[in-house]
């Protein structure tokens, strides 16, 4: 209370923002440099690898553009906040000065009066009331700074979500991990520095960039065809609108559109595309699983031959406890691949191991969710992936709309890999072996647990992620946004 100043240093903010403006300007030059570099490399290059390079070019230019436009926007938001803070500080100082002047004046007046005069009390009371009113004005100014700070934080979070969807509950370190997960370039810089980068590693490192945009939205010189991209997004939204099961997604996307600034529509496009593929792929999962070849899947991250793996599984099955089995309950449908896996017992070939690990990736997610030692970030990722696979069950599919409506599910999936099958391969690669260690409990889970899992466990595990996005959509942050516009 009183004339306490709000915390913050507007001079320091403005100083840092001058550098921030330079960052945005530098990124614009870098985007232009990258565009001309790619155009020169692609001017005469022909062949399949040239096409891959072209698609990656557009994806990388998009990444730089998103960074540049998001940072540029943040400058405006922060400048506005700095102004509110500075004005509040100056006005509160002025109020304090006015109060002090009044108090001094009253002191001078009362000093001239007879000490017994009743006028003294009157002057003192009026002065106190006057100063109290000024203090109240100071409090209003401080609250105005808090309100501005929260609104600005929401806008800044919207900018963060362009890079890492649904990031509000994540620590900076977790955010950096999510970025690494989505770009897939971990270890590449070290390989470059050590002069040990292989051609295979190099092309794999560009994989995420290759998938940023649809091929028809990439020009011959590797730049982005914004008109075509706009058409593609419109087509996606029309597709979504025709399907009742996707109405929940529409409202989420609409909410996302309302909550993000126009240049963040790049992220919206990726979100919409991820959702479209998510719908299509989950509907076709059983058939797709049967068709997947090991070459299309990441193999589990274990260095064992199939026979050595089977020996280990036999030994590990003895570690199952009653608590493992008690963790699961209820009836469920299962994918044909999973049922077949269980009927056939343990896989006897690398081929089956690879296919089975995709289905078991789903089960691995369930295990992660139940495991009290699993970190929250892992549980959220596990829940998203598991919901995608659970949606193929008869019970799960009816819950898909509700699940997607939570919003954070789709954005989190976009962070893992915007093509759902890619996301599942990540799951398979990371979760498959752990699942084999608890195969018996997992089998019970698969045959008895899926609806329970989908209706209770997944929404609970994803509750934080969902409320994070919902807060962005329905909270205090309002941005005037019309239809989606693409501009480069």
């Amino acid at each position: 209370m009183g004339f306490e100043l709000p915390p913050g240093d507007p001079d320091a903010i403005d100083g840092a923002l001058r550098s921030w403006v330079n960052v945005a300007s530098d990124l614009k030059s870098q985007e232009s440099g990258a565009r001309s570099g790619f155009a020169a490399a692609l001017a005469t290059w022909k062949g399949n690898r040239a096409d891959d390079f072209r698609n990656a070019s557009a994806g990388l230019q998009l990444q730089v553009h998103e960074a540049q436009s998001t940072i540029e926007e943040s400058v405006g938001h922060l400048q506005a906040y700095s102004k509110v803070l500075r004005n509040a500080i100056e006005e509160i100082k002025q109020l304090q000065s006015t109060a002090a002047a009044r108090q001094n004046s009253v002191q001078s007046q009362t000093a001239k009066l007879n000490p017994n005069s009743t006028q003294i009390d009157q002057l003192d009371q009026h002065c106190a009331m006057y100063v109290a009113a000024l203090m109240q004005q100071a409090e209003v100014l401080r609250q105005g700074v808090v309100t501005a700070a929260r609104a600005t934080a929401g806008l800044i979070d919207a900018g963060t979500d362009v890079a890492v969807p649904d990031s509000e509950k994540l620590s900076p370190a977790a955010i950096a991990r999510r970025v690494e997960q989505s770009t897939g370039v971990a270890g590449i810089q070290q390989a470059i520095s050590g002069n040990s980068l292989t051609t295979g590693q190099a092309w794999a490192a560009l994989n995420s960039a290759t998938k940023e945009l649809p091929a028809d939205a990439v020009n011959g010189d590797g730049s982005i065809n914004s008109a075509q991209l706009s058409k593609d997004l419109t087509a996606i939204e029309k597709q979504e609108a025709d399907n009742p099961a996707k109405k929940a997604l529409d409202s989420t996307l609409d909410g996302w559109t309302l909550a993000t600034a126009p240049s963040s529509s790049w992220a919206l496009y990726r979100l919409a595309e991820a959702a479209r593929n998510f719908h299509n792929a989950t509907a076709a999962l059983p058939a797709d699983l049967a068709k997947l070849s090991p070459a299309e899947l990441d193999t589990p991250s274990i260095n064992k031959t199939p026979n050595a793996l089977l020996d280990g599984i036999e030994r590990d099955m003895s570690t199952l406890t009653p608590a493992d089995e008690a963790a699961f309950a209820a009836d469920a449908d299962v994918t044909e691949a999973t049922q077949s896996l269980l009927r056939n017992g343990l896989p006897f070939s690398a081929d089956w191991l690879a296919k089975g690990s995709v289905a078991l990736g789903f089960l691995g997610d369930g295990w992660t969710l139940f495991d009290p030692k699993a970190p929250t970030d892992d549980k959220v990722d596990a829940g998203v992936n598991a919901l995608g696979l659970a949606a193929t069950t008869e019970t799960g599919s009816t819950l898909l709309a509700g699940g997607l409506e939570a919003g954070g599910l789709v954005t989190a999936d976009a962070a893992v890999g915007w093509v759902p099958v890619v996301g599942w391969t990540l799951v398979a690669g990371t979760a498959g072996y752990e699942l084999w260690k608890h195969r018996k409990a997992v089998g019970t889970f698969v045959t008895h647990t899926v609806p329970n899992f989908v209706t209770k466990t997944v929404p609970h595990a994803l509750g934080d992620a969902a409320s994070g996005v919902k807060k962005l959509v329905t909270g205090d942050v309002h941005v005037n946004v019309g239809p989606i516009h693409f501009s480069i």
Partner: protein
Amino acid sequence: MANVGGDPASMTGGALDLHRAATAVSATQSAISGNGGRIAGAVGDPALSAAMSRFAAAWSATLADTGTQLSVASQLASNAAKDLATAGGH
């Protein structure tokens, strides 16, 4: 192998431009991290400070990876140019 080819000279030029862009982008990610921290420390409000820290982490990490990918692209274009030069270009 149908329709594979290119001009090694223009591809090498493009590779050099990409290398410069990669270096510049990598330098920018450090600036984002540093300035983001300064802003986070100066705003005064804990929620806004935390939001700024997340923002700086996200874009710093994204541009670090983008810089790496641009380096990779530069190397791939350069290698492809060398392969074509060895094979005789167009």
